[in-house]
């Protein structure tokens, strides 16, 4: 309460976490530690955005799914490509920006065989003159931002165990924080902190196993009794199943400097066939708050105990200070795969609300007393066939990050509208191969469209407006102080929308579908630019990037069935487009 009063007294809307200073660059994929993806630039606004024009473009020369956000630092743009994970540095000071240098980490070709959902990379992070990112074959690299020379390269695991790395690191207090991917391959998930100077691994926090491996110590204070107890990461699994239990940390990390906590979610439990792993399967599908320097867990909240539907808990956590029920609360907003928007007290891990933001029939709500998700028994999976499960495995929303505008107070969610049918069978574990035990087919949810972009009011916990999209809205969103919201679609439209009303103001047809994260920055000439990379692929676009055969709908873990018409709307691609006012 004292903090809240303090904030009010200092008139401090400016001191709220969502109002961070903006240097008009783009140094990390989420824009800032609070992960708002909000830019204070306002040259492009709702009135003039209709004049937006293409200024220049750049081809990565690749045609797999491009999910990364470009970085803009010191008038240089950095782009990480999907495998082979080339890093391009483009000099923005010259007209028709030229390549300053490229860095090739030469990841193993075999690594492509363990990437569950196309050979994507979600971006790099800039800190102290270096660019940090992960390669598909389990290395984190630090590259000198000026010269393009490799400073260090640290191996964090082996693809032989099915591990890969696709997430964008976050650099906090001199630690490069990274996690692995591979929840579909039966990996043992972890998050690690590397020394930004040397690349040495300072800590590694496993998702499952004994408390010592999870870095749970005396300061661990989960809010709900269901998450309290000793060695739950061991006791909530059948003997030894936690060793191959998934729970990778393959997506976003946020950081609150005041509480000195990082926030991230862990992935689904392995295998998909939930009957093979009775128990809560902690700490899969869980939100963790940890200390960035030591990795020590401070609190945890399991979003989907005994996950039945591949509902990873990895989606972004937007840190906000919001006035909820008359109190200024430090919250995090987490739109989960289970189609619920969790508003949680980020100091304690208490759930304040968890309302539905997308069509779903798998849960009835969250019991705010026990914190436990109330699941619908008829939709639970296992050694059986279950039909009409909504949302499907990619969830109400997958990794594609949402944005928040402090001007409108709304969260802009790109999300999916997919359902699935599920047949469980015996999963078999062979190191380095898929560990699933399920045959899945996805299809469009009610209304016959497969995606939506919605504006969500986190205080009232309801949707303000939404736009239907033909395909899952698989790109991130970005919102600016000009009240313009940018996002791209899988059928290749890059759109500008009025952030208050949802009215479409402008659109541009890209060569391939967009599944990446748009950014906006001030160029050396003082003008505001908007940049986005196209290149359809990822899990949703695998039918195009992998050339999959739609005759068998179970392809790409069932996604092919829902996307059989995508090839008609989007070819492969990989081009950066940069727009500005004329």
């Amino acid at each position: 309460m004292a903090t809240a009063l303090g904030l009010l007294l200092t008139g401090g809307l400016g001191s709220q976490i969502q109002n961070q200073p903006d240097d008009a660059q783009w140094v990390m994929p989420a824009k800032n530690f609070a992960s708002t993806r909000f830019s204070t630039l306002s040259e492009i606004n709702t009135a003039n955005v209709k004049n937006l024009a293409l200024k220049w473009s750049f081809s990565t020369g690749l045609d797999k799914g491009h999910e990364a956000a470009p970085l803009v630092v010191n008038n240089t743009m950095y782009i990480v490509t999907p495998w082979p994970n080339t890093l391009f540095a483009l000099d923005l000071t010259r007209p028709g920006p030229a390549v300053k240098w490229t860095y090739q980490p030469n990841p193993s070709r075999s690594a492509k065989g363990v990437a569950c959902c196309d050979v994507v990379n979600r971006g790099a992070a800039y800190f102290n003159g270096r660019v940090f990112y992960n390669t598909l074959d389990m290395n984190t690299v630090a590259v000198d931002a000026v010269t393009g020379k490799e400073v260090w390269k640290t191996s964090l695991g082996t693809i032989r165990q099915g591990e890969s790395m696709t997430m964008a690191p976050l650099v906090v207090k001199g630690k490069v924080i990274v996690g692995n991917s591979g929840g579909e391959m039966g990996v043992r998930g972890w998050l690690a902190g590397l020394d930004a100077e040397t690349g040495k691994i300072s800590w590694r926090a496993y998702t499952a196993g004994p408390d010592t491996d999870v870095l749970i110590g005396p300061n661990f204070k989960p809010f709900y009794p269901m998450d309290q107890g000793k060695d739950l990461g061991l006791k909530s699994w059948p003997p030894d199943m936690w060793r191959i239990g998934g729970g990778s940390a393959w997506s976003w990390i946020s950081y609150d400097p005041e509480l000195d906590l990082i926030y991230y979610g862990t992935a689904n439990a392995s295998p998909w066939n939930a009957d093979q792993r009775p128990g809560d399967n902690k700490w899969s599908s869980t939100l963790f708050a940890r200390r960035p320097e030591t990795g020590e867990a401070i609190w945890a909240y399991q979003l989907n105990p005994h996950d039945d539907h591949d509902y990873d808990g990895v989606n972004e956590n937007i840190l906000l200070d919001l006035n909820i029920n008359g109190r200024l609360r430090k919250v995090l907003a987490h739109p989960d795969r289970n189609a619920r928007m969790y508003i949680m007290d980020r100091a304690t891990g208490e759930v304040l609300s968890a309302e539905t933001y997308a069509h779903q029939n798998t849960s009835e709500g969250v019991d705010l007393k026990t914190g436990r998700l109330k699941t619908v028994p008829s939709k639970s999976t296992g050694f059986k066939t279950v039909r009409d499960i909504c949302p499907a495995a990619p969830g109400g929303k997958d990794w594609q990050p949402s944005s928040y505008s402090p001007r409108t107070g709304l969260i802009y969610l790109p999300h999916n509208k997919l359902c699935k049918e599920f047949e469980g069978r015996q999963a078999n574990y062979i190191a380095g191969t898929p560990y699933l035990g399920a045959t899945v087919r996805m299809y469009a949810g009610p209304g016959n469209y497969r995606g939506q972009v919605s504006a969500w009011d986190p205080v009232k916990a309801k949707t303000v407006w939404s736009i239907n999209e033909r395909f899952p809205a698989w790109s991130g969103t970005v919102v600016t102080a000009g009240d313009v919201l940018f996002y791209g679609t899988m059928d290749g439209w890059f759109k500008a929308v009025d952030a208050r009303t949802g009215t479409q103001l402008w659109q541009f047809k890209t060569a391939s579908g967009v599944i990446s994260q748009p950014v906006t920055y001030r160029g050396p000439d003082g003008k505001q630019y908007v940049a986005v990379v196209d290149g359809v692929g990822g899990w949703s676009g695998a039918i195009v990037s992998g050339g999959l055969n739609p005759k068998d709908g179970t392809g790409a873990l069932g996604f092919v069935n829902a996307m059989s018409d995508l090839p008609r709307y989007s070819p492969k691609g990989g081009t950066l487009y940069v727009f500005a006012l004329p």
Partner: protein
Amino acid sequence: MSSRFLRVATFAACLLALACKREERDFRPQPARLSLTAPSEAQGDLVPANTPANTVTSPVRGGNPYEGVAWGISEGQFLFDSYNCSGCHARGAGGMGPPLIKDKWIYGVEPEKLFETIAKGRPDGMPAWGSKVPEYQIWQLVTYVRSMNGLEPKSATPVRSDHLQQSLRERPLQ
């Protein structure tokens, strides 16, 4: 005896003779088909395709013993799930791996080529299964993959898979 009766009788006898043909099921693999096709490495993991360890020359000899054998195809289907092939290739559509129902094959769809692909792996992520899987099982997998593409006799190929059939409740796409 009328000639018509004779004709009918001959026809019936032919039909009966046909019905007598039973597929030969040779459960026991010949010893020659039991060898491993790539060296195994100490860790017990599958060997990625482009490692120096995997430099053995092709072991293919004698052709596919399960060509046109329904039991071989059915065993191949069982192994396709058991060895997690379906995790990457689904039931032919592909996913993490390329589709297996297609017209254009990078490395060839001939039994010997498929055998080599499975046994020795391919550089973009296909592991070298020959380090673990016995030769006769690789042939069963080869036969199943070919049957997906209609390259095995219809009489030996199952008409539908053992798995989840498309629901009638699914909504058609726009």
